[in-house]
């Protein structure tokens, strides 16, 4: 480069009076050929002109041609393209933009920095240096980050620092990210300057001569005292020294040629050695190749050995598997063939053996295993064993069933006296020992299992039928026996009609008492008091018997069901379904629906069905027997239905709580329907009786028998249904009954001849009111109020009606007067009416002297006494009202006289005091 620079200076610029300061080898952007040079030049004459000259090197030979020159002052922008990365491209903006690519980034930087310096020195014009990296850091005690105003400035500064360091400190300072050219080039240039002396550039570089350099020069110059005095001599001396140095230099270069030759020889030898080593290496490789082939063969054979080993292991495990799983111990075989099925130990042995057999048979054989002859043989043996054992087991169990049936029936006689059912517990316990074997049988030989099931059902159903029939027989005897005793107490034996013992007792009581009175309905209820007392005792006894029947049946059924499910293995998921239904049960309350059974998975329900079917077969006689018993209870006394309804409901409720689909709950549910029907029949019978009731025409009516019966029924029902689930049924019955009672009372009242209608109504409704007040049946609150209303109404109308009689004519007269007044005649003018003049009034009043009135009241009292019955004790109440009413009437008459006949001086023949006296005397005379 220096050579080129030199050549350019000499060839082109010197003739032109220009000095070349910096040169860069460039090509135009996009072109490859690097044959152009950009040169920064200054004119040697003042005023100094700074130019940028493009010089082209001709293609042939070292011939340079000046092409274009720009003045520096035309330069507007220097674009270094990239501030961060080093790149050789840069643009110069003169009249237009020239894009250049330098041969290296360093060259580019040098060139740009030269331009900058020239500008600084000669033009001081603003040129934009774009995209140069002006950032630099100085690491002293810490890192200081600076940004210089331009990259050239920065570079200058850095190179200055470097130089200072080089010159004075020689200390190691790391110049990072600083181009090495920048640092090195400045050294020779500095020396150049000092050598070149008064060069223009030396002025530029002069700043860089520092004190030490000066010193060096001074010392050197002092070394030759004449230096200053005799510059020529000094120069001479210097050139002489230089020549000596050159000579030494050339000599040393010549001396080194020998060394170079030695080095070349050494290199040749080294190359030969390398060739030898290569030959050796290739021979080793060949050897290795053969070893590799051998190794491959060995590994293949190894693989084969491994394969055969694993095959052997697998085969062994298969054989071990077959032998382990398909081998049945001799003891087991023996147990299966001739094990004792009666002793519990024998059973256990058999159970274990059967389990083992089943396991052997159920071994999951892999496909292909069954092709093995030995396996086939073993399987055949197993199935033979199974056949044999199943047959043996079935026949044994059959005989056990028969045996148990006989045993049980032989003990049956003991139970006949008490109302209990024989206990099947020991029988169940004995059989449960076989439960596992049954399960085995079920799994292995379903046909035999079914046969056994059927046999069991046959024997057991016969056994149970006998037991249950006997049981119910005892229950029936007890029921009828107690009622007979009861009847003996009251009257004589034979039970009455279906209408219930109450009425039949009443009828009998009438006959037996031989009373002169005919058999009238009013007598029916007189017997009631004593009869019902007896009935209550009877009924509670009946209630107890019935309860006992149910509570004996329940555990029997449950135990049997439990046993069946355990023995015949039908129980798998029962407890799960049990709990779920329990929950729904509580929500539903008394409302027992069966819909939720559908929620239980199919298999379970089929097993439950199975149990239910078996239970239905075994206990087929329960339902008819229960129905018979209920019919009997109903026949003995229709009120027993109430007890039965409550008890049955309760039992159904508890049974369904346990398991709504069980045999027990369905059976009891069915029977409950019958009971409910009886209950309804009992109610409708009562209503029919009311409808048909006939009363005597001769005697007074009093309290109607059905009113008393309703009281009795309600009292009984309240005691029975106290906390029962079927309260709703009873309430419905109540409402029906009370309506019928009301209607019938009115009917009888209308038909009554001897007793006035009002009296019948008053007395009976008073009684009903008292009954309802006493029993406090909440659903009949409205009827209670109605009864009270009817009672007061008819009391009033009876009083008014009856009082018309003692002062009949007076009454008529004043009614007439009131009628006239009502027609519009003024009260004072009534006396001018012909029929109601004072004369007439006097005549009427005359007819009722005190004596007459007293007689009339006396008669009235007697009549009332005759109309009313003793039971309701309303005489005093009625009489009290009558006295009141009578006095009110009297006052009313007096008032009318005072108003309609003023000043006539007419008064009644008797005074209020008289009336009071009459009343007192009537009181005294009774």
């Amino acid at each position, binding site marked *: 480069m220096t050579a080129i620079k030199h050549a350019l200076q000499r060839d082109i610029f010197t003739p032109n009076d220009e000095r070349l300061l910096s040169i860069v080898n460039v090509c135009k952007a996009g072109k490859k050929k690097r044959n152009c040079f950009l040169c920064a030049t200054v004119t040697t004459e003042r005023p100094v002109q700074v130019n940028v000259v493009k010089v082209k090197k001709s293609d042939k030979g070292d011939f340079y041609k000046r092409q274009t020159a720009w003045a520096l002052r035309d330069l507007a922008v220097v674009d270094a393209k990239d501030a961060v990365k080093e790149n050789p491209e840069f643009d110069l903006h003169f009249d237009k933009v020239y894009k250049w690519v330098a041969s290296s980034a360093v060259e580019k930087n040098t060139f740009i920095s030269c331009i900058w310096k020239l500008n600084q020195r000669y033009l001081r014009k603003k040129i934009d240096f774009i995209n140069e990296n002006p950032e630099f850091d100085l690491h002293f005690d810490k890192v200081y980050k600076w940004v210089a105003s331009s990259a050239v400035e920065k570079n200058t500064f850095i190179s200055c620092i470097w130089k200072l360091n080089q010159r004075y400190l020689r200390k190691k300072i790391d110049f990072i990210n600083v181009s090495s050219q920048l640092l090195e080039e400045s050294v020779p240039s500095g020396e150049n300057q000092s050598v070149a002396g008064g060069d223009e550039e030396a002025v530029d570089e002069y700043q860089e001569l520092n004190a030490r350099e000066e010193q060096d020069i001074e010392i050197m110059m002092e070394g030759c005292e004449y230096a200053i005095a005799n510059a020529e001599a000094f120069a001479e001396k210097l050139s002489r020294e230089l020549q000596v140095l050159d000579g030494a230099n050339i000599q040393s270069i010549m001396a080194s040629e020998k060394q170079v030759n030695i080095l070349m020889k050494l290199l040749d030898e080294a190359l030969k050695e390398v060739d030898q080593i290569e030959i050796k290496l290739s021979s080793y490789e060949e050897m290795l190749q053969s070893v590799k082939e051998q190794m491959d063969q060995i590994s293949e054979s190894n693989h084969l050995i491994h394969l055969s080993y694993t095959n052997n292991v697998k085969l062994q495990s298969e054989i071990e598997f077959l032998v382990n799983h398909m081998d049945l111990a001799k003891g087991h075989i023996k147990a299966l063939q001739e094990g004792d099925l009666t002793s519990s130990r024998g059973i256990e042995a058999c159970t274990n053996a059967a389990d083992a057999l089943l396991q052997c048979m159920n071994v999951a054989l892999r496909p292909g295993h069954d092709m093995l002859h030995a396996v086939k043989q073993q399987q055949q043996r197993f199935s033979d064993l199974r056949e044999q054992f199943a047959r043996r087991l079935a026949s044994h169990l059959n005989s056990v069933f028969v045996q148990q049936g006989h045993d049980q029936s032989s003990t049956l006689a003991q139970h006949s006296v008490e109302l209990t059912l024989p206990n099947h517990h020991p029988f169940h316990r004995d059989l449960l020992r076989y439960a596992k074997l049954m399960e085995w049988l079920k799994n292995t030989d379903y046909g035999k299992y079914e046969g056994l099931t059927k046999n069991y059902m046959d024997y057991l159903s016969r056994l149970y039928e006998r037991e249950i029939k006997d049981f119910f027989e005892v229950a029936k005897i007890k029921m009828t026996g107690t009622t007979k005793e009861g009847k003996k107490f009251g009257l004589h034996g034979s039970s009455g009609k279906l209408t219930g013992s109450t009425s039949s007792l009443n009828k009998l009581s009438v006959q037996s008492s031989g009373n002169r009175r005919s058999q009238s309905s009013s007598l029916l209820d007189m017997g009631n008091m004593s009869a019902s007392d007896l009935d209550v005792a009877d009924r509670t006894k009946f209630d107890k018997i019935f309860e006992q029947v149910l509570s004996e049946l329940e555990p029997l059924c449950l135990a049997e069901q439990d046993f069946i499910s355990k023995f015949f293995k039908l129980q798998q998921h029962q407890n799960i379904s049990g709990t779920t239904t329990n929950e729904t049960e509580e929500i539903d309350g008394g409302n027992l629906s069966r819909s939720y059974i559908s929620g239980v998975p199919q298999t379970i329900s089929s097993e439950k069905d199975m149990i239910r079917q078996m239970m239905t077969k075994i206990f087929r006689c329960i339902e008819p027997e229960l129905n018979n018993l209920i019919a009997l209870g109903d026949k003995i006394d229709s009120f027993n239905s109430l007890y039965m309804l409550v008890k049955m409901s309760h039992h159904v409720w508890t049974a369904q709580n346990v398991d709504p689909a069980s045999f027990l709950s369905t059976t009891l549910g069915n029977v409950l329907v019958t009971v409910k029907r009886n209950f309804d029949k009992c109610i409708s019978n009562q209503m029919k009786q009311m409808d048909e009731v006939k009363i005597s025409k001769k005697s007074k009516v009093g309290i109607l028998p059905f009113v008393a019966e309703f009281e009795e029924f309600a009292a009984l029902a309240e005691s029975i249904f106290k906390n029962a689930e079927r309260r709703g049924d009873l309430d419905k019955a109540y409402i029906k009954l009370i309506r019928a009672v009301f209607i019938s009372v009115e009917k009888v009242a209308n038909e009554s001849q001897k007793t006035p209608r009002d009296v019948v109504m008053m007395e009976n409704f008073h009684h009903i009111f008292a009954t309802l007040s006493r029993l406090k049946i909440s659903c009949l609150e409205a009827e209670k109020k109605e009864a009270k209303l009817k009672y007061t109404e008819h009391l009033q109308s009876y009083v008014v009606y009856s009082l018309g009689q003692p002062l009949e004519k007076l009454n008529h007269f004043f009614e007439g007067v009131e009628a006239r007044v009502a027609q519009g005649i003024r009260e004072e003018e009534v006396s001018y009416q012909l029929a109601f003049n004072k004369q007439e009034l006097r005549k009427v009043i005359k007819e009722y002297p005190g004596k007459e009135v007293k007689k009339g009241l006396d008669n009235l009292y007697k009549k009332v006494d005759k109309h009313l019955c003793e039971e309701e004790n309303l005489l005093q*109440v009625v009489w009290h009202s009558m006295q009141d009413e009578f006095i009110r009437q009297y006052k009313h008459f007096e008032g009318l006289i005072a108003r309609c006949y003023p000043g006539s001086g007419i008064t009644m023949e008797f005074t209020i005091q008289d009336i009071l*006296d009459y009343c007192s005397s009537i009181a005294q005379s009774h």
Partner: protein
Amino acid sequence: MAASKGKNQSSLALHKVIMVGSGGVGKSALTLQFMYDEFVEDYEPTKADSYRKKVVLDGEEVQIDILDTAGQEDYAAIRDNYFRSGEGFLLVFSITEHESFTATAEFREQILRVKAEEDKIPLLVVGNKSDLEERRQVPVEEARSKAEEWGVQYVETSAKTRANVDKVFFDLMREIRAKKMSENKDKNGKKSGKNKKSFKERCCLL
């Protein structure tokens, strides 16, 4: 009447009790509490009403007839008849109303007059509304000394709290029963005398 009565009450003794006293002292309330265990707050003047109940008196089942009467009446004589029919009386007043206490003397005199032929009439003086202690107008001592003067028992009751309600009815029934028994003895001793009354007695016991 006698015949039907005999049929009716075949075996049960019947005791007839009359409630006597001024209006509003709680005769009906006492009766309803005794009969049906209920207490009615609203006051509605009674005209007259009759109640019957089976009770067990010292182990013996008897029937009690209660005639609940009107307190407010214009003419005392009207009461004669039912006083006449009664066998025992609960003479009720309210401890919160002194007038009602004073009135008891009149009622007692009328009872004595109406039943003049009887020596000793079963009667209890009852001071009702004992739950309203803070409104008391009749001191216990006053009522008690009056009762002592008359030779009868004094009991304070509350129909509201049921305090002593059963006691007054049962004590009265006991007195009635005792009287009937002594009369029977008398009758057995000397059969002469009040024919009508003894006839009645016998009927009751049939």
